[in-house]
């Protein structure tokens, strides 16, 4: 955190209303309050539809939870937030009942609060650094739940939606309409640049639309954020595959003076084991795209999707959890996670694992698929798995799974969703001559400015990090917008 920022934070904290608010309840009484549990739809009801699992806090619950926050002198929670949201300030506004102000505070640093409040891994970010967690060893203030509360309030009260703004500055092209691109575009539009987002698909939002399911992040939330950006003056162009429909050079000739690449990590990995191309075996990207983006489970839509009865999902990340819980909702009798390490090593958010268990998802851990078998039509009907044990820690610091010889056995299944990671989509990087790319196919950037080795070409999000998180992608988008602003100003002078 820069000194300037921390000074502002200190000043804010000394405003009269906040001092009064702090004094209104004793710290001892605040810490005695229990963390408010997020109300959820009952598991047996929610698995029958795509309804959002978390229902959101009521106004009373939100004020009570906000009351737990001690408004610390040294708000360590903020250090855990990749975009530096002024956490105590927005929470104290909630406690004071000033929701429009709370919303403004969030919007200053977070372009997509309704999204982040739902999908950020708060338990390893802000909430992991909350005074309650660190010093009191009690459940943290529900920062994520409160963020979502404020963002949803905005959505329902659409008050702080600006009028259509006219932007007049130089033209900047943003490639990819995921969280990285949306954030960069929003920041640049606020700096008066004429920003156009070029998106390959027929809809905007990136993984937020095609990947993360409705029951975790409803599409109308993402659409709401996109509408906000349109009002800020951002232009949206769909069905435009940069590198194919036009190259960066073409766009330069059209007058675009700087570029932000946020094209994500859309290339699914497979395991390259025998039988993996049988019918009924698909990547989580394909499965989730069919269901989320193409609405395949709705009979009114044309895109088909198989609805397996015995579905195995391979992997332990958020994508695997989203796939297996989707399979359950599409009527699977058995929806199984097969993961090569133990449940403690799963990269998925704790909350998602917990929800999956509640919904009757089976977990077969320390187990890895080694071969698939199919019937005479080529439809998968069996997976052969092998048990694993954990050995020495590997380069990621997690203990490396080692196969146990002779432990193979078969599981009858009729659908497999492979969810073992993604790599950057090469279309954009390949189309730019001399662009510096790492051995993981990610774009190399200066971490301060997010500029690549090519002048005026910036990048961020999964295309730079490999599969990461929404908030890190947004943080990159924000940094890159600042980098682009600096670059264009330097050039103008």
């Amino acid at each position: 955190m820069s000194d300037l920022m921390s000074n502002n934070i200190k000043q804010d904290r000394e405003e009269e209303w906040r001092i009064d608010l702090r004094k209104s309840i004793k710290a001892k009484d605040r810490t005695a309050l229990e963390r408010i549990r997020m109300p959820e739809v009952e598991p047996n009801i929610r698995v029958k539809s795509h309804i959002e699992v978390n229902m959101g806090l009521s106004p009373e619950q939100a004020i009570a939870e906000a009351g737990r926050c001690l408004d610390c002198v040294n708000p360590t929670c903020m250090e855990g937030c990749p975009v530096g949201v002024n956490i105590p300030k927005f929470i104290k506004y909630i406690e004071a009942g000033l929701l429009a102000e709370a919303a403004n505070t969030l919007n200053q640093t977070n372009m997509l609060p309704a999204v982040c409040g739902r999908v950020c891994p708060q338990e390893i970010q802000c909430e992991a650094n909350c005074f309650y967690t660190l010093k009191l060893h009690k459940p943290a203030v529900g920062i994520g739940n409160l963020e979502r509360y404020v963002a949803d309030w905005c959505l329902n009260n659409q008050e702080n939606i600006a009028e259509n703004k006219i932007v007049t500055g130089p033209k900047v092209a943003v490639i990819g309409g995921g969280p990285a691109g949306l954030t960069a575009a929003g920041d640049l539009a606020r700096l008066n640049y004429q920003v156009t987002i070029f998106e390959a698909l027929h809809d905007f939002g990136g993984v937020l639309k095609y990947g993360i399911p409705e029951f975790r992040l409803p599409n109308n939330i993402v659409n709401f954020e996109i509408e906000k950006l349109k009002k800020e003056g951002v232009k949206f162009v769909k069905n435009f595959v940069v590198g194919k429909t036009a190259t960066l050079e073409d766009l330069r000739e059209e007058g675009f003076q700087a570029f932000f690449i946020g094209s994500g990590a859309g290339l699914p990995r497979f395991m390259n084991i025998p039988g993996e191309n049988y019918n009924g075996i698909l990547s989580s990207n394909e499965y989730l795209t069919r269901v989320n983006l193409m609405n395949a489970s709705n009979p009114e839509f044309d895109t088909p999707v198989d609805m397996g009865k015995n579905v195995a999902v391979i992997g332990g990340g958020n994508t695997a959890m989203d796939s297996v819980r989707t399979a359950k909702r599409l009527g699977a009798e058995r929806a199984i996670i097969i993961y090569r390490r133990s449940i403690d090593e799963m990269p998925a958010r704790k909350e998602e694992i917990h929800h999956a268990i509640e919904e009757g998802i089976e977990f077969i851990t320390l187990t890895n698929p080694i071969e698939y078998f199919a019937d005479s039509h080529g439809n998968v009907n069996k997976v052969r798995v092998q048990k694993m044990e954990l050995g020495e820690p590997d380069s990621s610091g997690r203990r490396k799974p080692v196969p146990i010889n002779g432990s193979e056995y078969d599981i009858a299944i009729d659908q497999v969703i492979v969810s073992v990671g993604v790599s950057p989509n090469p279309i954009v990087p390949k189309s730019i001559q001399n662009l510096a790319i790492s051995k993981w196919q990610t774009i190399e950037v200066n971490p301060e400015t997010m500029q690549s080795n090519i002048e005026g070409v910036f990048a961020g999000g999964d295309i730079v990090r490999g599969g990461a998180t929404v908030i890190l992608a947004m943080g990159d988008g924000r940094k890159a917008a600042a980098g682009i602003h600096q670059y264009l100003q330097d050039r103008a002078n």
Partner: protein
Amino acid sequence: MNKIVEKEYLSDKVVKLVIHAPLIAQKRKAGHFVIVKIGEKGERIPLTISSADTEKGTITLIIQKVGVTSHKVANLEVGDIISDISGPLGQPTAIKKVGTVLCAGGGVGIAPLNPIVEAMKKAGNKVITVLAARSKDLIILEDSIRKYSDEVIIMTDDGSYGKKGLVTEGMEEIINREKIDLAITIGPAIMMKYTSLLTKKYNIHTLASLNSIMVDGTGMCGACRVTVGGETRFVCVDGPEFDAHEVDFDELLLRLKAYNPATEKNTKNN
């Protein structure tokens, strides 16, 4: 953009649409395809760009009515707008002067073959084309193919036009007659399998343009994966053309049936 400016029936079930899509027309090369989606509830399907006119800013698509979406596309009229078209996608055909090129087009595969025949001829090759279909009315684009081929042989299953017999018979006749430097085969997977077996016998380098099921068309989903030379490749970004002798056609044939009988709506285009 995406407005239909011309529509013509090439046969009962095969429709030609000329669509205003200037950016795609600018960039497209022989071998490229587009992904098309009709309306909010539509699915995304790949269609090869049969030709393009950069001055008018149009692309030509040729559609055989088979599944839900191809019917929807074919039922559009002049003046209608196609809600979503993205492209040009895939790798273009490597057009080179190699000598004599034997092109084989089966059924609606004649449409994607058309631009390749033209480009191969313009590159200075001798082009011999074998067109094959079940019957006369399914032989499409004959004039255009003739314009850029030194010789055209037509084969129909029922003998209603050209010679009666299979595409491979027509090809073998040519192969026995003169030296072929490159073969290109486009059509139903089963036809490509057999033409590929034939040219393998004669050791002729052969390209096949694969028609796998796709969703995004940009390498994001893996629906289009095929095995080529023992490795998994994505048709939409690595293809659609591959060395035919390396392609696992049996796997492709099975994968094309992936969504067939499951439900009514699952009749796929390809």
